[in-house]
């Protein structure tokens, strides 16, 4: 701690920080542009000037940039000094000399850091009489809009895009006062994190193009804290609605999970909520019917029939649990294929029965060595890839620190470490975007990847099973990895279910456990397939395959399928047969899928934006998403439909549950592995100063007009029975508990930068702790239950290729595929071959390869890659129209 005198008042601040962040942490208002808690300081904008004095007698002082000045004990500074204030006002005035007269047509307006800072400095009149500089804009793809005139040359965009996120195609061009931020030529921004430019850029140069399609000011949105539904990481988001339509997804800071950023799939994948082809009305045998009729029909199909329920990895815990209660424990099946089921169980086993702790995403950034087994993170869990980047970037900063270069001094630190990178070992089937950072890349078939992992584990701890007949190269790689991991303090082992291989997960666990034994704070990160795949794995249930088998052997049965397209989880022929055999197929879902097309009854569910629910992310962190708005007539939360069904059939247990809280409490009481989920957010009776927390800002407009065309008498706003948020602008105006912040705002801070005001220490945890409850903790240190069963080395098979899944950030995930901007970036189906394999069969790129895998015939255009191991072929996972089969498996070439 250090004592600093700011405007003659003494404050205690943390040592080692810069003055700007210290002032902001103290709650003082000091304008800035180029500094960002995640990017550090470069002193580019000159906006954060303060006066610093030699000692108590120094009355003159000198101007310095507070973001570049470390805190010193007994330092005396002044923010209010007239000269400093005048300086800051001038800086904004200079920045404004070329600024266009655009606020009215600028999407940043109302959430603009430049507006806020201009008001804060007091500048209000443009004295400059000369002409303004102008720029041409660029087309940057379906996600981001470019309006270069508004740039204030703070360099935040390129520092984020290139330095932080590893993008290659955004840069600063031209010279002097004409610097230009864009691509070398027009075209889609390649980075998976480009959406963050909209939040990083303090002006309206980069804005969200999907928001522009239905533009709404920040103050006019009805917001709720939400959780991203597009992968297992569970990034925290704020979802905003206007006129009954979901309009934007922005970051919701969580210091343990996603920090300040989101990936583009998460930010722009929300379009499925507004999709035309959504299910909006109940249907019975393809006829639209009323709510009463559908409930009557369901009642008829349930009473006197055997009923089974099929859950879903993309439905909330509550929905899955109510289904399970409705059909009974014995009749509840996980709606995932056997392989996914096994992988889910294995992940839970590894995280609970072994000694290695599953790391929160943000902690990965502080790890000093990373070993990735099998997972193409950029495409399956993009934010984990971003965290790995930070780990690699930050590890060498230890050396900089030894030379008195603090981490926040970004330019100096970068200059010092040059090209040095932290240790990162990759073992994957095909190339990944992280390869460029890797100390060493090992490309092999899933089994060989696992073998490398087992070998590393054995080198670290001889008690872990050994691997025979490794090649010399593999031996040497294993040795290098083991040596490096031994030398560091906080290594992390990352793997996941993307390869579909249990053996890889086991190998990853062995490595992490062996490291634990060496007294390393070794962490493990295992990613899963879907947003609530972990939650489903924690909820006891049977295998989907057994459901298919059971029904195929019995007749006259009813099945309730919850938010699930069975065709993504089982072979089409079997699912077809299943749908035919079932007497009644009731599907509760929001998307029209091949499954709903075959269903006899379709019930319109609410999406995440129209529902309350809890999901468990890959770390084992239970997180809650809140309903943003009441859906249009007909739709409601899946769990609420199931409760209605329960009431219709006089179900003894369901009858007692009335709302979200009743369900959650029962869930926490009954499911051993889910104890504690009721603590994720305060109860719905929670009030602040007797009031609810408003979903709308105090400037929310149009409420006596928006519905006036239908009826001039305003309807009563809906009451939320499931949470303590209100659907209006009335309510408590202060800061909500961290798990239920509907939007970030603070007087004078309208932009996202207002997050500062919600943290005790800028860039650290939210005020009452980062949201989410960790459900899985490792066993106390002890003997690691090492996995054995080391696979044989891979041998190519004649006329066969080992088919693996290749994942795509855009295309592999079901929900985001229904979002227009994301759909624009989905690749065409293909099959990828190694160049030798292709040459052997005289195949050129673009030729059609016909093959059969797991009984499914495919004919796909060939893509040739020299990086894919010989004897292996890859096909994209989850593209629309491409059947999903359980891979890896041998494919027979035709």
């Amino acid at each position, binding site marked *: 701690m250090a004592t600093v005198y700011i405007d003659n008042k003494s404050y205690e601040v943390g040592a080692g920080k810069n003055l700007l962040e210290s002032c902001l942490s103290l709650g003082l208002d000091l304008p800035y542009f180029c500094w960002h808690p995640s990017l550090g300081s470069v002193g580019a904008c000159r906006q954060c000037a303060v006066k610093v004095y030699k000692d108590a007698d120094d009355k003159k002082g000198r101007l310095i940039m507070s973001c570049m000045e470390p805190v010193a004990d007994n330092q005396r500074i002044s923010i209010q000094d007239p000269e400093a204030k005048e300086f800051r006002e001038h800086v904004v005035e200079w920045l404004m000399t070329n600024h266009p007269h655009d606020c009215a047509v600028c999407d940043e307006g109302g959430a603009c850091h430049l507006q806020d800072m201009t008001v804060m400095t007091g500048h209000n009149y443009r004295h400059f009489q000369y*002409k303004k500089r102008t720029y041409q804009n660029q087309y940057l793809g379906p996600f981001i809009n470019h309006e270069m005139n508004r740039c204030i040359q703070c360099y935040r965009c390129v520092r984020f895009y290139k330095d932080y996120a590893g993008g290659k195609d955004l840069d600063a061009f031209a010279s002097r006062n004409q610097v230009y931020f864009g691509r070398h030529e027009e075209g889609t921004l390649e980075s998976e994190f480009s959406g963050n430019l909209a939040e990083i850029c303090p002006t309206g140069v980069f804005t969200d193009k999907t928001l522009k399609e239905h533009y709404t000011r920040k103050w*006019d949105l009805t917001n709720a804290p939400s959780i991203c539904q597009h992968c297992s990481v569970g990034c925290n988001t704020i979802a905003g609605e206007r006129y009954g339509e979901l309009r934007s997804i922005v970051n919701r800071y969580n210091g343990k999970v996603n920090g300040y950023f989101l990936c583009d799939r998460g930010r722009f994948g929300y379009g499925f909520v507004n999709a035309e082809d959504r299910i909006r009305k109940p249907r019975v045998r393809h006829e639209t019917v009323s709510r009463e009729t559908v409930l009557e029909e369901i009642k008829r199909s349930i009473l006197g029939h055997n009923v089974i329920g099929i859950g879903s990895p993309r439905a909330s815990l509550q929905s899955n649990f109510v289904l399970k209660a409705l059909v009974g424990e014995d009749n509840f099946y996980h709606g995932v294929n056997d392989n996914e089921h096994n992988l889910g169980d294995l992940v839970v086993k590894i995280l609970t029965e072994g000694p290695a702790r599953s790391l929160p995403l943000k902690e990965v950034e502080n790890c000093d060595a990373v070993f990735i087994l099998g997972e193409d993170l950029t495409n399956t869990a993009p934010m984990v890839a971003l965290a790995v980047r930070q780990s690699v970037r930050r590890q060498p900063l230890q050396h900089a620190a030894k030379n008195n270069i603090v981490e926040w001094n970004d330019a100096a630190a970068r200059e010092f470490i040059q090209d040095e990178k932290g240790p990162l070992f990759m073992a994957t089937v095909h190339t990944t975007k992280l390869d460029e950072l890797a100390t060493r890349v090992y490309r092999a078939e899933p089994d060989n990847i696992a073998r490398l992992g087992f070998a590393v584990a054995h080198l670290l701890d001889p008690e872990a099973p050994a691997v025979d007949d490794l090649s010399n190269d593999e031996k040497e790689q294993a040795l290098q990895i083991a040596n490096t991991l031994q030398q560091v303090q906080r290594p992390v082992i990352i793997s996941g279910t993307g390869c579909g291989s249990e053996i890889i997960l086991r190998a990853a666990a062995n490595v992490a456990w062996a490291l634990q034994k060496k007294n390393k704070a070794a962490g493990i990160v295992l990613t899963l397939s879907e947003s609530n795949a972990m939650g489903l794995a924690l909820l006891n249930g049977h295998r989907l395959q057994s459901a298919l088998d059971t029904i195929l052997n019995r007749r006259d049965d009813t099945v309730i399928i919850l938010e699930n397209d069975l065709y993504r989880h089982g072979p089409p022929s079997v699912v077809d047969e299943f749908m035919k055999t079932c007497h009644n197929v009731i599907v509760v879902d929001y998307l029209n899928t091949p499954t709903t097309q075959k269903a006899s009854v379709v019930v319109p569910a609410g999406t995440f934006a129209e529902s309350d629910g809890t999901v468990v992310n890959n770390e084992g962190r239970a997180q809650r998403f809140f309903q943003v708005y009441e859906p249009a007539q007909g739709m409601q939360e899946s769990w609420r439909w199931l409760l209605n069904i329960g009431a219709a059939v006089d179900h003894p247990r369901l009858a007692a549950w009335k709302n979200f809280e009743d369900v959650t409490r029962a869930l926490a009481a009954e499911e051993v592995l889910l104890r504690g989920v009721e603590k994720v957010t305060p109860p719905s009776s929670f009030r602040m100063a007797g009031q609810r927390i408003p979903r709308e800002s105090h400037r929310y407009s149009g409420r006596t007009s928006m519905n*006036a065309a239908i009826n*001039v008498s305003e309807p009563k706003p809906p009451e939320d029975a499931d949470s303590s948020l209100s659907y209006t602008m009335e309510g408590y105006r202060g800061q909500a508990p961290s798990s239920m912040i509907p939007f970030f705002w603070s007087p004078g801070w309208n932009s996202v930068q207002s997050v500062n005001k919600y943290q005790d220490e800028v860039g650290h945890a939210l005020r009452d702790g980062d949201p989410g409850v960790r459900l899985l903790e490792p066993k106390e240190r002890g003997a690691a239950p090492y996995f054995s069963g080391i696979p044989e080395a891979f041998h190519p098979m004649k006329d066969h290729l080992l088919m693996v899944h290749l994942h795509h950030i855009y295309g592999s995930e079901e929900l985001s595929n229904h979002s227009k901007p994301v759909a624009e970036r989905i690749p065409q189906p293909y099959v990828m071959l190694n160049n030798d394999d292709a040459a052997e069969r005289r195949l050129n790129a673009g030729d059609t390869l016909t093959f059969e895998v797991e009984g499914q015939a495919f004919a796909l255009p060939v893509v040739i890659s020299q990086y894919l191991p010989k004897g292996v072929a890859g096909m994209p996972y989850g593209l629309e129209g491409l059947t999903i089969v359980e891979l890896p498996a041998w494919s027979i070439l035709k």
Partner: protein
Amino acid sequence: MFSIVRSLWITFLHMFHKRETIQYPEEKVKLTTRWRGRIVLTRDPDMGERCVGCYLCAAACPVDCISLQATEDENGRRYPAFFRINFSRCIFCGYCEEACPTYAIQLIPDFEMGEYNRQNLVYEKKDLLIDGQGKYAGYNYYKVAGMAIGGKDKGEAENENPPVDVKSLMP
């Protein structure tokens, strides 16, 4: 006593003053141009819609009776897709006019808006948009803004230099 007599006398004298009461509606009221009455949306001198859908009027409105949706034409010009004022709520405070950065929304000297059915007081864009500039002649927001729209490219607004040549290395 005296004061009563005086009051009576003053009142009596008023019988010879000029009359303030007018025979409305046969006779119309004279209103100044700054009178805050019925709200209209005006056009710029080129007859383009002035409103750019910035939502500032809606935000300024203390009774929240303005709602709209901004949209863009194929050339990037913004305009409201719909614009609704619920006059049964409007208090004619004029805040919207004050907030408007484009002089689009204006209160005009007309108060004859009585309706038997309250629903008829909900005015849509077709009821609001007039074919003129209203009180503020000559102003054309897009001529000073930096956005390119149909007929005005980058660098063609008032007081603008032509777009920077990014490839030029001239000092």
